[in-house]
C-alpha cells in the first residue's frame, strides 16, 4: 500500500494495472488520453504485461473490447464524450454478448457546441445500454471502482460490462492523494479469469450475437440482461464488503452526507457533489437542516437505498449536470421515478440544471436552490426545472457577441425569457 498524488486518469490506469488487465483496445480523446498513454508507457517500459492496440475509432474499440472479453481475456478501455457517442451502437450491443470488461468514461460535454469540459450528457446517453455504471467523485474512488467493477462484471450472475465514470478536468487532471493498494491483495480481490470464461475454442464452439426472429426470444434475452444487471446490486454489496475487509475502505452504493436528520437533501452525482458538500456545511452553519445524497451506482439504480435515504424528507433538490433537451434533468426523472407512490416519499422534488460544459455551481446558487426548494415545500407546488445561469454570464455572452459583430453590436439589455439571476 502506497499513497501517491495521482490524477484521476492515472488512478484509472492504476486500477486497470492492479486488476490484471490483459488487453486494452484504445482510441485517443481528451480528456481520457492520459489513461491510454500511462498504460502504453508502462507496457513499453516492461512494468506491465498487456497488449494495447489502437483501433480506428471508438466504435471499433468497443467492438474489439467486447469480442476479446467474450473470447476470454481481461479487457480494459476508456473513452469520453464524442467517443462514447461514436461507439453507441456497440455500447448497446456488447452487454448482450454478456462480455464482462471495464470501460472508463471521462465525462465531457457533447457537441454542439463542441467543448472539452465536463458534464454528464455523454454518460447519460449510455444509461439504458446494459452497461453497469459507477460514478466517482474522487480519484481514490476511480481506482477502487475499477477493481470492484471487474469483480462485479465477471461474476457469473452478472457477466456485463461496467462503465466507471469520472468528470473530465475536475478529476481527470486533478491530483489528489490516492492510496494504491498492494498488488497481491488487489489480485486476490479481483480474482482470475477462469477457463469457464473462454469461448470460441474448437472444443467449445460458440455462436454469439446471433439474430432472433420474433419478440419472444428477443424479449427473453433482453430480460436476461436486465435481470443480470439487477443481480449486480447484491454482488456490489457482497464485493464492497470484501473490499472493506481487505482494504479498509468501503465502496458505497450511495453516499449520504448529513442527510439523516435533514429536511432538505441535494441529490447529485460525480465530483461536483463535492461543491454541494461545501454548500451543505455552510448552510448548516446558518441553521439549515440540509444534506446531500450522492448515488454512486447508477446502473443498476439502487432504488431501495435511495428510497431509504430520502424517505421522510420534506424536500429534495436534484441537480443534474446534464440536459435532456425538451424535458430537463435525467437524474431528476430517475429519482422521482424511484420515489413516486411510496409511503413517506418526499412531496417536493425540485429540478435544477447546472454544471453544463464545466460551468461552476457557486455557493450562492446552492443556497438559492435550497430556498427555492423550501418555498416549493411551503406552497406545495413544484416549479419547472430551472436552468442555472446568471445575469453576469448573460452579459458576458452578450459581450462575446458584440465582439464578434463589431459595430453591429446587439443591444446589451437582457431579452425577454433569457436567464435567471
Amino acid at each position, binding site marked *: 500500500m502506497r499513497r501517491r498524488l495521482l490524477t484521476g486518469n492515472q488512478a484509472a490506469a492504476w486500477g486497470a494495472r492492479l486488476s490484471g488487465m490483459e488487453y486494452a483496445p484504445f482510441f485517443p480523446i481528451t480528456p481520457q488520453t492520459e489513461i491510454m498513454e500511462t498504460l502504453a508507457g508502462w507496457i513499453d517500459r516492461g512494468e506491465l504485461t498487456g497488449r494495447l492496440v489502437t483501433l480506428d475509432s471508438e466504435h*471499433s474499440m468497443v467492438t474489439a473490447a467486447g469480442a476479446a472479453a467474450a*473470447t476470454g*481475456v481481461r479487457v480494459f478501455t476508456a473513452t469520453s464524450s464524442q467517443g462514447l457517442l461514436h461507439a453507441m451502437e456497440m455500447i448497446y450491443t456488447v452487454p448482450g454478448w454478456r462480455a464482462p470488461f471495464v470501460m472508463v468514461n471521462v465525462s465531457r460535454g457533447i457537441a454542439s457546441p463542441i467543448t472539452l469540459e465536463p458534464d454528464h450528457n455523454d454518460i447519460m446517453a449510455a444509461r439504458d445500454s446494459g452497461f453497469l455504471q459507477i460514478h466517482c467523485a474522487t480519484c481514490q474512488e476511480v481506482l477502487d471502482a475499477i477493481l470492484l467493477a471487474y469483480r462485479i462484471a465477471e461474476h457469473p450472475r452478472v457477466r456485463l460490462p461496467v462503465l466507471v465514470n469520472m468528470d473530465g478536468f475536475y478529476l481527470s487532471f486533478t491530483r489528489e492523494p490516492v492510496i494504491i493498494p498492494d498488488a497481491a491483495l488487489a489480485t486476490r480481490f479481483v480474482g482470475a479469469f477462469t477457463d469457464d470464461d473462454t469461448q470460441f475454442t*474448437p472444443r467449445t*464452439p460458440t*455462436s454469439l450475437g446471433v439474430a432472433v426472429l420474433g419478440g419472444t426470444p428477443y424479449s427473453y434475452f433482453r430480460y436476461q440482461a436486465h435481470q443480470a444487471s439487477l443481480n449486480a446490486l447484491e454482488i456490489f454489496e457482497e464485493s464492497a464488503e470484501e473490499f472493506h475487509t481487505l482494504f479498509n475502505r468501503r465502496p458505497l452504493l450511495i453516499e449520504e452526507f448529513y442527510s439523516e436528520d435533514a429536511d432538505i437533501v441535494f441529490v447529485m452525482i460525480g465530483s461536483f457533489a463535492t461543491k454541494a458538500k461545501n454548500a451543505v456545511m455552510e448552510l448548516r452553519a446558518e441553521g439549515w437542516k440540509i444534506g446531500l445524497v450522492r448515488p454512486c451506482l447508477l446502473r443498476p439504480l439502487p432504488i431501495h437505498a435511495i428510497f431509504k435515504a430520502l424517505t421522510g424528507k420534506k424536500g429534495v433538490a436534484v441537480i443534474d449536470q446534464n440536459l435532456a433537451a425538451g424535458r430537463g434533468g435525467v437524474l431528476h426523472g430517475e429519482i422521482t421515478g424511484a420515489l413516486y407512490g411510496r409511503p413517506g416519499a418526499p412531496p417536493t422534488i425540485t429540478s435544477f440544471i447546472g454544471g453544463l460544459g464545466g460551468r461552476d455551481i457557486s455557493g450562492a446558487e446552492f443556497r438559492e436552490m435550497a430556498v427555492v426548494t423550501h418555498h416549493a415545500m411551503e406552497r406545495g407546488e413544484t416549479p419547472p426545472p430551472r436552468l442555472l445561469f446568471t445575469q453576469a454570464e448573460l452579459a458576458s455572452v452578450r459581450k462575446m457577441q458584440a465582439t464578434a459583430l463589431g459595430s453591429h453590436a446587439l443591444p446589451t439589455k437582457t431579452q425577454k425569457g433569457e436567464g435567471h439571476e
Partner: protein
Amino acid sequence: MNKPTIKKITDLSPHRLIAPGTPTCAGCGALAGVHQIYDILGEKSIFVNGAGCMTLLATYPFTPFKGSWLYTAMACASAGAQGVRDALDILMEKKRRQSDEAMQVVVLTGDGSASGMGLSATSAAMDRQLDFICICYDNEGYGNTGHQYSRSTPYGAKTATSTKGFHGVKKDLFAIWAAHKPTYVATVTAAFPLDLAKKIEKASKMKGPRMFIMLAPCPPGWHFDPPHAVNMGKLAVNTGIWPLKEYIDGKVVHTLIPKKRVPVEAYLKSQGRFAPLFLPGNEGQIQAIQAHIDDYWALVPPS
C-alpha cells in the same frame, strides 16, 4: 505442410460442412461460395460477421456452422476479428490454451459494408497486419435491405434506389485493399470452385491479412432465375467483367485469363437489372462498358 493439397476438381470435398436449411434465397451465390470456403477452412474457425444477408445464417436457436460465430454490426466486423484474434493470441501466450487449438479468424461481410462503413475498420486491421481472413461477398448492392445500390453496384444496374440504372462506377475494392499491401488479396466466385479452393487453401496457410472479394450472383437483386446462378458467375468471368486474380508479394497475377472473351452484352442481357441499358438510345452505354473491359484486359500480360 505448406504444400497445396488441392490441385484438381476431384480433390474438393464432396461433403458440405455447413448444415443445410439456411434462410438465404434459392440460388444465393454468396451462400454457395461460403459453403466452398467453409469446406476448406473447417470448423476450427470463428466467422465474425457484419450486418447483411449472411447474418441470418445463424438464427437462434440454430447455427449451420460447426465452428464459432460472432455477429457484430455493419461497420465493425474487422474490429471484432481484432478483438478475437488478440484474445486468442494472449490465451496461447499464457498457455491458457493449447496450440492445437489454432483458430482461423474469418470476417464475413457484404460489399455495401466492405466498401462503405466497414472500410475504416478493415483498413485499420490491414494496417495492423491483423492475422485474419476477410471475405467480402459481393452481391453488388445492399441486399439485405432490399437491394439498394451500394458503392459496389456496377454502372447501369437497376436497384431499388436506381430504378433507371445506376450512374456511378463500381468501387475498385481490390485496388483499395491491395494498396494496403496486405499478405494476400484475391477475387473469387463460386462458379469457379477449383480457383476458389486453391486460393482459400493457399491463404489459409499464410499469416496476416488475407482478403477475398467474392462475386455473389443474387437472384432477387440481379433479377434472374435461381437455377442460373452458376451461369451468372461463369459469364462474369468469361466476359472479363469479373477478373479472377490475386495480389501477392506486391504483384497482381490473373489466375484465369479467358482465351476469348464473351461479349459483355451476353452477361448484361441475362439479368433483369441491366434492362435500362437495353432501352433504345442506350446502345452507347453497353459499348462503353465493353470498352472499359477491353481497356482493362489490354493491360493484363498474357499468362
